[in-house]
């Protein structure tokens, strides 16, 4: 149905969007970049910074893009990244 779609949907504010809080344990990272490569929303990127082991850990470029799929947590060989859902009851 190729109809022009341009408006913000009327229910945009009612749709529950999970807000993520991404935690990276920098010094556990060995710079394999799996989390960066496999993130479906391109939330992460390699940082300039060096960690204790001499690797570049990832940094978060846009936390709001994260949809909490948790794939980074699952794929990280070093248990160096995890995501929790923010409690937005009192606003985020």
């Amino acid at each position: 149905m190729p109809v022009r779609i341009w408006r913000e949907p009327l229910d945009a504010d009612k749709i529950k969007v999970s807000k993520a809080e991404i935690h990276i344990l920098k010094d556990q990272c060995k710079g394999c970049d799996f989390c960066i490569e496999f993130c479906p929303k391109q939330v992460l990127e390699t940082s300039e910074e060096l960690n204790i082991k001499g690797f570049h850990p990832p940094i978060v470029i846009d936390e709001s893009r994260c949809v909490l799929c948790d794939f980074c947590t699952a794929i990280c060989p070093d248990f160096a990244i995890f995501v929790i859902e923010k409690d937005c009851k009192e606003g985020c």
Partner: protein
Amino acid sequence: MTKVQLQETEHATPTESIRIGVYVCHCGLNIAGSVDCEAVAKFAATLPYVVVSKDYRYTCSEPGQELIRSDIKEYKLNRVVVASCSPRLHEPTFRRVCEDAGLNKYLFEMANIREHCSWVHLHDRESATEKAEDLVRMAVARAALLEPEEENTVPITRKALVIGGGVAGIQAALDLADTGYHVYLVERDPSIGGRMAQLDKTFPTMDCSICILAPKMADAGRHPNIELLTNSEVQEVKGYIGNFKAKVMKKPRYVTDECTACGDCVPVCSVTVPNEFDVGLSTRHGIYIPFPQAVPSTYIIDRELCLNKENIIVCDKCIKACERQAIDFEMKPEILELEVGTIVVATGADVFDPASLVEYGYTKFPNVITSLEFERLINAGGPSGGHIIRPSDMKIPETVAFIQCVGSRSERGHLYCSNVCCMNTIKDSLLIKEHWPETKIYVFYLDIRAYGKGFEDLYKRAKKEGVLFIRGLPAEVIEDRKTRNLWLIGENTLQQELYRINAEMAILSIGIEPRKDSAVIQRLLTLSRTQDGFFMEAHPKLRPVDAPTGGIFLAGCAESPKDIKDSVTQASAAAARASILMAKGKVTVEAITPRLIEENCTVCGLCARVCPYNAIIFDKEAKRVEFIEAACGGCGTCAAECPFDAIKMRHFTDEQIFAQIDAATQLDAEKKIIAFCCNWCSYAGADFAGVSRMQYPTNVRIIRTMCSGRVAPKFVEYAFARGAAAVLVSGCHIGDCHYINANYQTLKRVEKLWKKMERLELNKDRLQLEWINASEGERLASKIREMQAIVGSVSAEEIENSKKMMRKG
């Protein structure tokens, strides 16, 4: 062409004793008004082989037909020529008359002196009569060389394919299935239902749209004879009437039939996008069902949106949420090969995008919405729960303005009327009045077209309810920045005064337009389209649901804009037409297919290379060329390509066409234009010019071939050798050829001829090529006017030169 062949054709004489009867029809005053029919009949009597020639008031009437039947017996006629209307109209009628009298129907010939003569030369009786005589001369010359032919019969597969699952497709599928035929109903979207499913109420009865559609959808979904293929697209169609082979790609849903549509998967899905069904007014998730009544009632995963790309399962939330384990990311697209006998095209239409009309401010002003958005807003199941709300502040507006003809009846959109918008607006205005009676409603219109059953009553009711109808569309819509209200400024043409009206919301009554990708279906099924872009029917009055291609039928908005009732009517008609074919179980194929003249054939394979249907088996080693008759379309491009005259196109033989050229150039050749027109587009275009009474010069003589691909270079050369001033080769537009792509060969051949003429230092403007479709009568008329100038500029010397040069070959 060699000299020897030319002489042969010039002296081509029929082998048996030919007895021709000629009947010149007055068609009331349609022909007799500008042609002296009596004189034409007298003239015809002087032509070779003509044993009887009569003029008659209405030849197609029963007494007229009886006259021919009794003459065939009395005068022992073995050929009949009727000079009347287009063969596209009455050839079948007169062929039947011949058959009734025991004459093979291929021994009948028609001279088109109405569409191609009297109607296009209304004011020049002398020249029109002269032309009519020429046309009869051509028809008689051809008739003398006609041969009896036997038609083959082909079995019809008793299964149907319906393309498009809107209300028209559903109705056609149900009717066919109820008749007892197996139906494949193919729908591109995840659910059937189409546009009608999006509407709130229907006019003029104000029935709830989905309430009357949903039962039909469910019926189609569970009918034992209907195989529902949603989320599927037709990729290829081969074959011919009765024996189509279609390839359909069934795209994966990634949700199996185990799905109970419980919806547990939806809240866990973390991606969202505007919902197409609600025209973007609400959101949906990556896993979704298009609307609650969807058939099949199975969820679907939008892989474009889903986090899981290709082979990596990144997110498994829906998989975990589904108790029935109905989610399967491993599903792959399937290609189904279907064998069907008939096809119903019900692919529907798109809506006009009003953003291009900047003066209305759509996409700039939030409170300007389209009628389709309105349908979703007023629908209780829609994004606002049935409240019409202003998108800017979600308030219910107190004044509403409808603007009609947005994208219709205007050069800035489409020229045609979209047929449904007037009544849709009237219905919408009544719906607003029903819910919020205090609302002030303005309707800005050009004309209110309330032509159908019950329509006028509804219009009256709206007026009675206080809806204000103002004639004259706003020239501009301006937004008040603060309140987001709209000012509509324009002229009330009935009262001849300017208006400046404030409304809290404006609804653009958008028109219907052909599907943007209509060209795909058109190419797959070798259909034609009218100037408007909708699919063309075989005859606008008498075969309104048949496509020009045999075995294919049209239903719904794919054919033209229409409302639900008309779509359903047409769908039932299409189903009935398809059933007629399938009930018979067999179809006869016109005997216009080629025959091989083996002694001339050198097994070069050129014919096989140009055949659009791959209907020629060519085996160099076995020295074998063979035609597959059932697959052949009869375009004749093989015969035009053959350099050795080894292919005889039945009913359109070289000899017959040469005889027509001979007859057309017998008198005043140096003033004449010989035009070769293909049966489906250009000849029909010339008919259309006639029906529309478009006037053009009288010196053109049209020769009909099935396809422009039949026009061999030798025909053109021969016309010049006979001294014709100009030649027009005309066919369907490139890409629209009725014979898939045979007109590419036409283009190649004409280009070659132009080069040759240049080489021979002949004026190559004398050969013109023009693509004219069946609705482009004016294009044909203006082409002939344009060529008239060329004819005037051709010197006697040039004609002599071309006579000599072309004769040499």
